[in-house]
Each structure stands twice: as C-alpha cells, then as structure tokens.
C-alpha cells in the first residue's frame, strides 16, 4: 500500500480541473493509494477503512476471503472512502489511460458523497482519523478488559443495523433553536406566556426593556437581562433546566436507549462499555448512506466517467480500450441486475426527459402516443435536474420515482421467471413480465430495509426491557433472534421481551419472545 507517484497524481489533478469545469463539486484534497489485491482482501471486511477497529469476525472474513480468492480471483479497479480528505485505492496494475477513466469515476463518487444529503452526518469528519482514535481506544480497553470488549462489540453489532439513521439526519437538519432554545428564548416564548400568563402590556414592557438594554450595551444583553430576571423570579433557573431536560432528545435507537437507561451499563465498573457501543454505533451510521445509495452512486460515477473520459484529450489512441472496459462495466446482463448499468441508464434517461421538459404535468396529461414521442420543450435544464437528484435522493426514491414503463421498454428490462421443464430435464428461463412496476418492485425488494424495532416504554415493567417490531409483511429471521437477544439481555442486565410476528401458513401471527437468563422462550404454542 503506497501513495501514487507524482506522474499519476498529476493525471489525477488534471482530472479534477476538468471535472470541476463540468460542474462536479468536491474538496481540493484527496489521497490516492496503490494497493494490491491482497490488500483489498484484507480491507474489504473492514468496509475498506484501513483504520477500522479490530474485531475477530473481520479476521475470519479475511481468512475466508483468501481461500475464496484462490477459487475466484478478482481484480477490482478502485474503491473510494468517504472521509476528509477522501481516500481512494487503485489496483497496482492499471495503465495510465485506464487510470484517467477510473479517476473520473472516483471523482464522481467523491462528488456524490460530498453533496448527497443522505451523507450529511459524514461531512464534517475525517472518518479515517476518527476510526484510528476509536481503534486505539478499543485496543486500550482490551488490555484492561480482554475478551469482554469483543463481546460488547458483538452484542452492539447485533443491533447496529437498526440505528436511528433517519433521526440522526433529521436532527442535523433541524434548526438549532428548535432543538435547544436559549434562556432568552425560553423567557419570552415560554416562561412569560405559559408559566406566568402575563398580560399583553406587561409583556410589551419586558420587550421594551430588552430593546433598551440592547441599544445601550449590545454585547452584554443576555447577562444584564438575566441577572434582573433571576432577581425577580428566583424559580426561573430551575424551571429552565427542567424545560431543557424535557427537550433533551429521546434516545434515537435501541443502542442509545441502552446506553442511557441500562442499569447494568450505568454501574461504574461497566461505564467503559458505553464508549465501545458508541464507536460501534457511529461506525454503523457512517456506512448507512453508502448502503442506501448504491445504485445512484455507481450510476452517477459511471455517467461521469463516460461523459468526461470521452472529452479528455489525454486518452487519444485508447478509445477502443475504453469502449471495451466501459462495456464490461455497463452491460445489462440477460439475467440479473447490474447497479452500475441501471443507475447510469436511469441518469441518462432522466436527463433526456428533463431536457425535453417531460418531467412535468404538461407531459403527463398527454395520452396520445405520437404526441408523447414528439414532445420536446428544449428546456436546457437536463443537467441541472440530475444534479438536483444527486443532492436529494437515495436509491429508493430514485428507483421508485423514475423507473417508468418508458424506461423499461427502452432498455428491454423484464422479469425473468425460472421453471423446470421435466421433459427436457432443463431449467427454463422465460419472460415473466414486462411491466415496469414488477421490475421496480423486484429492485426495491432487493434494497436495504432494516426492520423497525423500538423500545416500548408503555409495556415496560419490573426492569424488563420491552422491544416492539413494527410488522411490515416480513418476519424477522427466526434463527438469529436468540443470539441477538442474548446480547441485548447482557447489555441491559435483565430480562428482554420482543414482540413481533411470525408467518405461519402464509399468515402473520403475533408472537412474543422472552430472553431470560440466556434462555429464549416464546408464547407460541
């Protein structure tokens, strides 16, 4: 693993200039490394973060990966890490012209990750550096608590896929004063109006006071005013703190709930576990957006390497080579789905539609096929439109909104069924449906959608932690429930209940699991 040489870096910087001219936006700095396939094998269990905390499951994955590699050697071109500065890894056997193409691809990834709103919570951090600090902390804890650190990691990882990711995003986007009003805001908006129920003239007098002080000494408004308020209302400070406490955000997921309320974790000798849990949770949150924007991110990168590479004067003579590599990456397989290819074609399709003004009510209401074909407003806004999508969407709404029948027909997207033909002793593949909605459903089903499980405080009794799974037509994998609940019981330090549904003979049936003393039982007959 080493930093790319000056010659290659120069190529990269050249790519940056051209990518910026085309409208991509990203930070100036980036670090590029040359890695071998072996390095990548070791990195992939860690989500490509070289500094991620050590965990035995990763080691096992590496051992497995090495064996797998013997059977299926593979040669990934690049990997990008969303950090500040972003790191990217390149295979050690890429020729220059290929690197030009890959750099564009990488820059588009970086652009996507630095602008798409689903990545908002990762924008301010040098994650690679944070991870290193976390890794050191965990190793430090290991020297004191040994394997119990790994148990805490394991048990927290058991629930790290159901973190309150959207809650985290929404908290970040909420304005500061809504989340936490200051003393003055509280005084005027809540204390006077709701606690003291003052009449209008009195209220206006307070406002006058405020304005006068602000005119006289604009810098010390708050302190001057507050000392007066404290004199007049001795109860103010108390009430304000109480109000603040009420306003403190509720735990956003099970991990946060455990960290705040678990009697076991709140024992002094177990406090260290919380920092481990925090690390696991933060790491999981960091990976969330990437898992939710795979199709878009790859589509976006493919779109831009295709656009920019062809205009690059430095690749003269390698057009045919490029065509070959690009075709590999973007071909639509007869059987199966290629996220690069679908995402790329969808971006192209949407750009074209927006360019012609077809993403509009005016177009939607035309029913005549011929007229639809001719519809072209020449808006010149196609590019702008896809840039907007890159800021605002994730895979789900991207696919759900823009995979239309037009798009499916244009690229011959179909659902392929398999059936056994016993006469010919073959498995037959046939076109099962050409309906875009079916295709859309199949893709959407394959997108990540963690179960929604929350702590229910209503049913909480006698120190029992009560979890409720919101049933969405799918049961939880029954085999995993025991181990996950064992972990939660450990972190909670007492009995844990889980309400969920199990599908029996095609019908969902309510079931409650109870984990007590590391024994799982359920109320199923």
């Amino acid at each position, binding site marked *: 693993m080493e930093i790319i040489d000056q010659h290659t870096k120069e190529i990269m910087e050249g790519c940056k200039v051209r990518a910026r001219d085309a409208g991509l936006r990203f930070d100036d700095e980036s670090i590029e490394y040359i890695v071998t396939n072996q390095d990548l094998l070791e990195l992939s269990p860690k989500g490509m973060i070289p500094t991620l905390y050590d965990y035995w499951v990763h080691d096992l994955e590496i051992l497995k990966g090495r064996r797998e590699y013997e059977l299926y050697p593979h040669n990934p071109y690049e990997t990008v890490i969303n950090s500040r500065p972003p790191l990217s890894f390149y295979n050690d056997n890429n020729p220059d012209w290929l690197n030009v193409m890959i750099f564009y691809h990488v820059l588009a990834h970086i652009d996507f990750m630095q602008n798409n709103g689903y990545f908002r919570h990762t924008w301010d951090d040098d994650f690679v550096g944070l991870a290193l600090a976390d890794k050191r902390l965990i190793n430090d804890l290991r020297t004191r608590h040994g394997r119990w650190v790994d148990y805490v990691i394991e048990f927290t990882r058991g629930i790290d*896929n159901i973190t309150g990711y959207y809650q985290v995003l929404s908290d970040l986007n909420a304005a500061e004063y809504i989340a936490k009003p200051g003393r003055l805001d509280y005084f005027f908006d809540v204390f006077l109006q709701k606690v003291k129920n003052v009449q209008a003239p009195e209220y206006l007098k307070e406002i006058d006071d405020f304005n006068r002080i602000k005119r006289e000494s604009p810098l010390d408004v708050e302190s001057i005013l507050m000392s007066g308020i404290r004199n007049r209302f001795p109860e103010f400070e108390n009430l304000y703190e109480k109000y603040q406490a009420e306003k403190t955000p509720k735990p956003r997921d099970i991990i946060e709930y455990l960290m705040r309320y678990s009697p076991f974790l709140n024992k002094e000798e177990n406090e260290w576990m919380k920092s481990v849990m925090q690390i696991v949770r933060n790491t999981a949150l960091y990976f969330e957006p990437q898992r939710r924007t795979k199709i878009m991110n790859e589509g976006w990168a493919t779109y831009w390497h295709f656009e920019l590479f062809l205009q690059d004067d430095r690749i003269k003579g390698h057009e045919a080579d490029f065509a070959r590599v690009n075709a590999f990456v973007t071909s639509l397989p007869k059987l199966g789905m290629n996220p690069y290819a679908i995402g790329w074609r969808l971006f192209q399709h949407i750009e074209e539609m927006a360019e012609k003004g077809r993403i509009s009510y005016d177009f939607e209401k035309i029913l005549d096929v011929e007229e639809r074909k001719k519809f072209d407003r020449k808006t010149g806004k196609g590019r702008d439109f896809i840039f907007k999508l890159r800021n605002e969407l994730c895979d789900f709404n991207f696919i759900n909104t823009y995979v239309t029948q037009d798009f499916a027909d244009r690229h011959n997207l179909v659902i*392929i069924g398999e059936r*056994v*033909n016993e006469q010919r002793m*073959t498995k037959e593949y046939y076109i099962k449906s050409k309906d875009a909605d079916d295709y859309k459903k199949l893709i959407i089903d394959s997108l990540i959608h963690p*179960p929604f499980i929350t702590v229910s405080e209503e049913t909480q009794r006698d120190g029992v932690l009560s979890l409720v799974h919101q049933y969405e037509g799918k049961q939880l994998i029954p085999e995993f429930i025991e181990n996950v609940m064992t972990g939660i019981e450990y972190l909670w330090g007492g009995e844990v209940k889980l309400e969920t549904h199990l599908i029996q003979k*095609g019908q969902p049936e309510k079931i409650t699991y109870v984990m007590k003393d590391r024994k799982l039982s359920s109320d199923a007959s």
Partner: protein
Amino acid sequence: MRKSDNNNLPEKVKREIENSDVGHRMPEESKRFGSDLSSHIYSPDDFSVLQAIEPPSPHYRTIKSLDELLERDEQRNKDGFKRKINIGKIIKPGRAGSKKIIIVPTTTEDKFYHDSRVSEENENHEDSRDSDSDETETGESAGTAEGEVGDVIGERPLTPEGEGEGTGAGSGSGGEHEIGASAYELGKVLTEKFKLPNLKDKGARKTVIRYNYELTDMNRKHGQVLDKRKTLMEIIKTNINLNRFDPDMPPKPENFIINPRDFMYRVLSKEKEYESQAIVFFVRDYSGSMHGKPTEAICSQHVMIYSWLMYQYQEQVMTRFILHDTEAKEVPDFYSYYNLNVAGGTKIQSAVDLVNEIVEKENLAANYNIYIFYGGDGDDWSPDKNLFDEAFSKLFSYVNRMGITIVRNSYMAQDKLTDFELFLKERSILEKHKDLIELDVISEDADDKRLVEGIRNLVS
C-alpha cells in the same frame, strides 16, 4: 540495541540480516515512515503508512490465526455464550463436471434482519399453483430480453454436466487433489474445535517410507526425456518476447526462432513416498429416494470424516468410493461419488458384497486399518436376509470401524424404523459387534453441527 530493533522487522528482512555477510549494511531506516513503507496494512504502524504519522507505542496486534480464533470460540462456551465459528464450503463448478471445493471458516453476524425466505403472498401462491404438475416455478430475477411475455429465452440443464455415468477416470482426478489440500486443515479444525476424538491406536501399522524414482523433475537443455509440451510452450514464450508471435494470426512454426534453452527435459528423481496406513471405504446409496437433501447431508458428513481421517493419519489415507442402488460399483473419486444419482431401487447387500470382494482381492486387510462409512436413507430391498447377514459378518472379520448414517426422508414416518434399521435390530448386529459398528440416524435437514455430532457418535 540492534537486536531489539530487529523484532519489528518483517520476517524476510530479518532473515536477510541474519544471513548477510559481515559488512553488508542494511539501508538506514527512514525515521519518518517507520521501518517499511509498503508494509502490511495490519502492521502496527498503519498510520505511518497512510499519513506519515508516528506510530503509537506499544505496538498492538496483527490478524489472528484460525487457531487463535477457534480458541476464542472455545472460550465463548465457557463464558456461557454459543459458539460462533462454523465450517463452510465453497464449491466452484469446473469444466467437465469436476468441482473445486474449498473449506472456509465462516460465521454469521446475527442481527434482526427481515426474512426474505417466507412471505405472506408467496405461500398463497403455492397453494393455488398445485394443479400445475408439469412445470414448477423455481424463482425469478431481473433481466433484459427482447420478446413477448411467455417467451422462453434460454435454458440450462438441470444436472451439471459430467454426471450420468461416472466414466472417464481422468475427468475428476484433479478434483481429488483439490480437496486433499484443504481436507487436512478441515480435519485439524474438526479435531480441535469439535473435540472429535483422536483415533485409538488399535495396533496401527507403522508408516512405511518408500523411495521411488520418477520422471518428475524438469531440466533445461538436457535430460532423459524431452517434454514436448513444455518445450513448445517455452518456444512460444521466446517468440512472444521477440514479437514473432501474433495471437490473432494462426502461428507459423516455420518462422519460430528456437533457443537451445527452450528444450525442456524430464529427469529421474528420487521421491519420498509414504505408505498409507488406513483405507476408508465411503459407501452410499444413490438410488432415487436419495435425491436432494439426503445426498447432500451424507456427502457433507463424508467430506468431514474424510478430512478428519486425513488429519488423524497425517494425510496417509487411501480412499475408495462405492455407490449402490440395486447394484454396487466403485467410482474413481469423490466427485463422482458426490454427483451421481440414478433412479433405481435399493439393495445394500450389493455394496457390502463389493467391499468384501475388493478387500479380499487386493488383500487389504493385511496391510491397512480399514474404515467403512455407509450413508443411506435406510431403504433396503435385499431379498434374502440370511445372505445379507452373512456378507455383513464377513465384513466384521477385518473392519476397524464401521459407521452407518441413516438420513430419514421427510416423507417417512419419523417414529418407524427403516428396513435397514429393522434388519440390524433383528439380527442384533449392533450388539454383537459393539466395538466395531455405530449407527446414527439424522433428519435430512441436519446442519453441520448435527453432522459433526454424528461423526462423534460414529467414531467414539
């Protein structure tokens, strides 16, 4: 001072220092980047590689080896948590029906995930489709195709090629070697992790080392026999390097330049060979009723037994594979053993007879420890039970251990004894040969853990 420094250097460099002549100096270590810039990413100084940040001290760790991981798994048990490490197989279908199997350690990270195997609508579908007897839906996926709904766009044979009759001894022989390579490791894991017993030394024969002279070593320019294939390859390499070979054009041998160094010869060499100490017969029922899960279960278990024996005997194990329906036959390798299926009846006696015959004809009993592992679903149509009993008794005159695994088919009554079990019981074979035979009955859905448990039963 120098000594302690060395501890942090990679193995290769250390060796170089030790072997270096006096006066040969290693290049000065760069202070800034730590000892080795291109060092392992798991090396303690990962950030010295990334951003030239000084490594923290003390150094912490590297990847754990499988042994350490298994030890940790053992510790879990003591701490009151379930074990997590399992043994998985990766199977890569190859040309001509041969498969590569690689044994890997696996673990699942249990989380609350949605279960995509069952859904509400799906089950209803299945009910309504029961009338369709000819074609059964097996799945659907996204794809691209031109044509209309209902058009068939392709097909794939149900059974992998190379099945049918297990002829062509050469076809799968490469495979045997592949599994051999990882079998030893699996055996070690099984022995250590699952606490499979070490074999009792029942007068085991000493390993015999033999020397053979074989034409296996290669030499350039001269030797005993010219290897034409290798030589031709060398010539082509030479010509590629000289740019006289265009891959897109048919080669013109008359234009080739031949370097004397291109001639590759085989030379006689002395090879050390260990005589095997044990011979294992794997016998299984491949009749129609075994199709699917039962076969899978038996074969998985037999792979593990094979691996375990490989470890126990330090790879000095010979294997023979026998399949039977109403007739028995020997197949050359594990791959045929694994893959073959026919739709015949079942006569276990045929297999027993064949084993007896082989042992007798090759005089194996005198030279080897003999193990027999039998797997089937318990069906048996052997018409003459007395003859069967006789054949069986013969077997016990030489076998060191016989292990019988019966997989109960899901469609059979679970509490009723199968024909074979009934036979064993009537003739009280299990009691008579208590030390030599073990029977284990499993369900067709048995997982790896249960299979290993079964092995323990069979060999204890």
